[in-house]
């Protein structure tokens, strides 16, 4: 930086800098605006859904308890009970977890710990590509392969069922679980592995007693993220769920989860019916919110 020697020079430099400072301020605003955009959108969506969804209970005298625990959903008769759908959503998600978590976890362990670099380079991208497949294609796959398979194997009248949903969701949550868990496992310091192996512990013993426990919080995060994916999935589920409005009592029952209910009926619903679909959205949203809360707890714990 040269020191201005005359007043005139000083003024000129001042002018040039003024433009720079101005540009600085403007660009800061632009960045801020972009950053706020997503927050604003979030608030708008929440506000809108809650406003519409809360209306029947606040202004029209419907009971929220009946809404949650009612088992009849007959909009034409003014009956709005979503209990069967809540149960279906929970069953489908838990079922998908029971199948998807072990497979995803073992895949992640295999990729991070056991597979040779060459093999991992083939499998890893394949798993990641699984995440990029549009969800409707999963539905089509389920409808074309899984549903007929179930029909034939179990002699069902209709293959679209809870188990079909579970299978499709289990596949769909794999990439999330595998990718996040693999990253967590790879982040475990090599010195832990060496410490265990040097004590004469086998590789598998080392993986399950030292490496996986050390990656625990990352693995939990992977599971919760997979869960979020499963509970919010709509398109693939519509195609294989069967959409019956009953509380499922067996894996082969046709079901209608929360997301499907909204997607199926929103197109033609109006008035209270439409508002009740928004209310269904609130319930779904609450599930996701709880998951996020759990996730935040886990990552906070992992940070310690």
């Amino acid at each position: 930086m040269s020191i201005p020697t005359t007043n005139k020079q000083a003024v000129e430099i001042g002018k040039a800098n003024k433009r720079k400072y101005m540009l600085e301020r403007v660009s800061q605003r632009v960045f801020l605006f972009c950053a706020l955009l997503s927050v604003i959108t979030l608030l708008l969506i929440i506000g809108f859904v809650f406003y519409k969804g809360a209306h029947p209970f606040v202004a029209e005298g419907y009971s929220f308890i009946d809404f949650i625990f009612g088992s009849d959903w007959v909009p034409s008769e003014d009956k709005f009970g979503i209990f069967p759908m809540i149960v279906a959503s929970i069953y489908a998600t838990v079922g998908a977890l029971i199948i998807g978590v072990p497979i995803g976890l073992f895949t992640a362990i295999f990729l991070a710990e056991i597979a040779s670099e060459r093999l991992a380079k083939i499998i890893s991208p394949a798993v990641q590509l699984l995440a990029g497949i549009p969800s409707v294609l999963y539905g089509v796959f389920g409808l074309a392969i899984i549903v007929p398979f179930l029909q034939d194997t179990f002699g069902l009248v209709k293959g679209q069922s809870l188990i079909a949903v579970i299978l499709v969701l289990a596949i769909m949550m794999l990439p999330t679980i595998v990718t996040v868990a693999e990253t967590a496992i790879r982040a475990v310091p090599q010195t832990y592995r060496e410490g265990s192996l040097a004590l004469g512990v086998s590789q598998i013993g080392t993986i399950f007693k030292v490496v996986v426990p050390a990656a625990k919080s990352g693995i939990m995060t992977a599971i919760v993220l997979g869960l979020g994916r499963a509970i919010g999935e709509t398109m693939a589920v519509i195609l294989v769920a069967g959409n019956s409005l009953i509380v499922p009592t067996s894996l082969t029952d046709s079901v209608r989860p929360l997301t499907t209910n909204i997607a199926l009926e929103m197109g033609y619903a109006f008035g209270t019916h439409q508002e009740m679909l928004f209310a269904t959205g609130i319930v779904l949203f609450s599930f996701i919110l709880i998951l996020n809360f759990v996730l935040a707890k886990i990552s906070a714990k992992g940070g310690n």
Partner: protein
Amino acid sequence: MEQRKKETIINVRDLNLYYGDKQALFGVDLVIQEKEVTALIGPSGCGKSTFLRTLNRMNDLIDGVKITGDIVIDHENIYKSNDVIKLRTKVGMVFQKPNLFPMSIYDNVAYGPRMQGIKNKKDLNIIVEESLRGAAIWDEVKDRLKTSALGLSGGQQQRVCIARAIAMKPDIILMDEPTSALDPISTLKVEELITNMKEDYTIVIVTHNMQQAARISDKTAFFLNGEVVEYDDTDNIFSTPQDKRTEDYITGRFG
């Protein structure tokens, strides 16, 4: 000093090691006696740590390592037999940086025995106490066995690492610069411990610190560029080195 006949426990013959195309060890011959402290010294990259890790086959973890020659430990050629697990229970290791697992002190020391199938609580309690006493850290940790091992100081952690190795009742303990990450007082404690431990264990220690080698070891091997230049009683190495390069190194002319 008591002069009883000591037996050879490690016998290394013409050991060559390659990382891919690069040769890191050249025809190493070394005979190590039981219940002695053998120090491996030499400048960085001379192959002393690599050599140490051949003794419990930790180099197996690295891709592309090729080894020729023989290492006989306790009458068994360790590269002919493929029981790495048995080898590593017999040849324990302490690393440069303390590497305790993120669990309690107790669980760290009990980890090895548990993985060998010892479930009985009383037995484990005895092993943990004996091992921690053996590593001269029992008194410092006996009231906090169930707390996280990572809450200990670096020096304490390293002694618990030694306890963890002792818990497997090994014959040999390999130490890879065990004090290089420690402060002087902790270093002194670990050195004292090593001197006491040689009554029960054969110790092979890599060290950067020549005073340390002189203080604690019975034999010293000087490594340079992947070869053993000189191997003799520590007293001889430091008073009357036979090789010019050894003399240059221990007098600080290079390295």
